[in-house]
């Protein structure tokens, strides 16, 4: 059995001459949670639609389960689109059974699974109710169940957290993790980095239709310059004292008379070097804070770096 569930190779797509996806390549490996990140309009949804065969690429090759995306692979995929909606006049279990049967589950088994999953997701009380009678959050849960009811090998979620309140976001995170623990492969797109940071084994970052990063979260974080923030009451010229350790930026003067400094560390320095230099110079430190980088910082950094590069190229 191949370990690569989805692979894109040099894929491009334009609409009315306007490029939406440009030469994107990446792969999704079996059993992993892959985050597909990018700002709004980066081409995430178009890429996911092409991965499913809903749209055809203008250039490049896509393989889903080793073959061109087609009907045969669809039954093994569960897709939750960004634009979410379900039949409002149908009952909750009927909607789930309908989508399960579209994916090849027989009627009796589909009904059994629908009822069980509604209970499992805390929606047992909605059995027999029409979707239009549910709250937005509950309706989204019904749709998520419809995506998972046929027990797909590969789950694609397009901006799954948008529109959910914090409690339901946490529930969805748990659900994604549970699916991965059950051996399923998950690819989800988002522009909210916190979810990706907590969930993903791997992230693919796109901006303006181009891929700017493809790797694990640790590698992505390593792309962000490490930073130390200090506050000191001192006559020392900290800018020249710490200049060989990175870029030093002088900050505000606090009400206690302390001045803050921000040091973006050079690759050959670390926070300990800064601390040692300050102690050796008898600087009276009021604050010393090595800043832990987050995926959000990596995201912003990578996008800005890409923008600079394309700006220079242009």
């Amino acid at each position, binding site marked *: 059995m191949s370990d690569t569930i989805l692979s894109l190779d040099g894929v491009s797509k334009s*609409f009315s001459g306007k490029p939406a996806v440009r030469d994107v390549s990446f792969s999704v490996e079996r059993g992993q949670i892959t985050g597909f990140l990018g700002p709004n309009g980066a081409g995430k949804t178009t890429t996911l*639609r092409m991965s*499913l065969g*809903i*749209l055809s690429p203008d250039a490049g090759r896509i393989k889903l389960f080793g073959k061109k995306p087609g*009907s045969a692979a*669809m039954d093994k*995929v569960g*897709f*939750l*689109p*960004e*634009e*979410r*909606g*379900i*039949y*409002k*006049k*149908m009952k909750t279990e009927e909607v789930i059974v*309908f*989508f399960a*049967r*579209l*994916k*090849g589950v027989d009627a009796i088994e589909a009904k059994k699974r629908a009822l069980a999953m509604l209970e499992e997701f805390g929606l047992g009380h909605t059995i027999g109710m029409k979707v239009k009678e549910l709250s937005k959050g509950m309706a989204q849960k019904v*749709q998520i169940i*419809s995506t998972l009811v046929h027990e797909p090998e590969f789950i694609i979620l397009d901006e799954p957290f948008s529109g959910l309140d914090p409690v339901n976001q946490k529930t969805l995170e748990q659900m994604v993790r549970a699916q991965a623990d059950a051996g399923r492969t998950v690819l989800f797109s988002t522009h909210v980095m916190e979810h990706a940071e907590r969930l993903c084994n791997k992230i693919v970052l796109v901006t303006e239709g181009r891929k700017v990063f493809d790797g694990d979260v640790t590698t992505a974080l390593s792309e962000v310059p490490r930073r130390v923030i200090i506050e000191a009451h001192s006559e020392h010229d900290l800018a020249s004292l710490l200049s060989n350790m990175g870029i030093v930026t002088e900050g505000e003067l606090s009400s206690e008379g302390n001045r803050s400094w921000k040091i973006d560390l050079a690759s050959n320095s670390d926070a300990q070097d800064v601390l040692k230099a300050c102690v050796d110079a008898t600087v009276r430190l009021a604050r010393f804070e090595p800043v832990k980088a987050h995926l959000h910082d990596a995201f912003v950094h990578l996008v800005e770096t890409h923008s600079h590069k394309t700006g220079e190229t242009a």
Partner: protein
Amino acid sequence: MRAIYLIARREFLSYVATWGFWLSLASLPLFMGLGFGLPLLIENSQPTRYFVMVDQTGGELEQAYLSGLAQNREDQSEQIREAVTDLVGDSPQIQAALENQPGITDDGRYVRVYPEDTELEQLRPYLLGDQLLDTAEGPQPLFSAVYLNKSTSGEIEIDYWSVNLTDSGLRLDIKNALQDYMRLDRLRAEGVPVELIETINALSPTVRELNPERSDETAEITAVDRIPFFVSVGFALALWMVVFSVANMLLTAMIEEKGNKILEMMLASSRHHEILMGKLLGVAMVSATLLLAWGSLAIGSGVLVQQVAAAADMPIAEILSAVLDPGLLLPAAGYFLVGYLTYGAIFLAIGSLCETIHDAQTLMTPIMLIMMVPLFIITTAFDSPDSAVVEIASWVPVWTPFIMLARLPLDPSMTELIGTTSVMVVTALLVLFGSGSVFRLGALNHANQDTVKAWFKIGGNKKKPE
């Protein structure tokens, strides 16, 4: 196939659960009931008109009016008998039933009253409604006062006083009766014997319609021979009605589905052509249900009429035979399928481009206009089936299903049949293919009604060179 079946099934069940479906189901019998019943209801609900007639000649004109009126009513009754005979055949029972309806034209709407004082100035307050007549229905206004007179030169003069400007029935009755009297009077004055005048009035040729394809005894054309024409036009109109109503259902359902953002979820579970075909098939099942229900209702009503009025002796067997004739039924099914698929696909594609019914209206208007044309042509085809306009219109693929269906009993040439059918089928396939592409773009929000408008503006907005 699985996806097509499941989508079709869901569509069918969802439509059947709507009020729209049941309204459509009830629409045909309702309209038929209204068509027959409303004029009767209106006629029967007319208020009684009270009038005064004053014959200033001493009774000659009044007598002439009364006998003329009786003759006019007899003529009208005869016309109705002929019309009924044309429609359902020459049945003695029907004639007897009509003879037993004395009020067939005498609706009793105009009732003459005889006040003591017939001077206009005395009657004026009654005509204006300031005073009311004492009638069997209670106090009522006077509808009109009619003064009949003869000038010294012998001309008949009618002074008709009334505040009602629209109800001309009584005035025309009087005018027609006295007009006939004047003509008869003149002929008598010229010395023409009364018997001769009556003989001349009764003259009428005997017309036998004969079919040259048949031999002596069977050559005469009867009402039964006309049944297939009525049935085929009925089929064409029913097809138009079904396509019109279900196409609208398709459009509104698609807009609703797009508004509910279901299409992308569907596209992740099935291919766009499966969704399109599933929806078309589901609604076709709705149409078939409608047709079956209407057909059963029509047949049931026919049988009931025959049972209830054994006197009517209607040619039900011949009507059923014409309706169930495979030579008409099979082509009708084919035309229905192609016509429905063509219009259904167009409406689905339009629906996929629109977010609201308001959006759809712009795109719908030209399609609706195109759809209305065959309705007029079918009625023309009934009287003039060999008209050049009808023949040319048969070749317009979006009209072919309706017009050719109506023309089938006229045995159009094989070239025309095969040619129009081929053009229609090829067009339907092209429409299905094009609609599928538009549907995919629309469903994914890559096209909307503005895109369609832009297609038709290609080359139209080019800037003039400076």
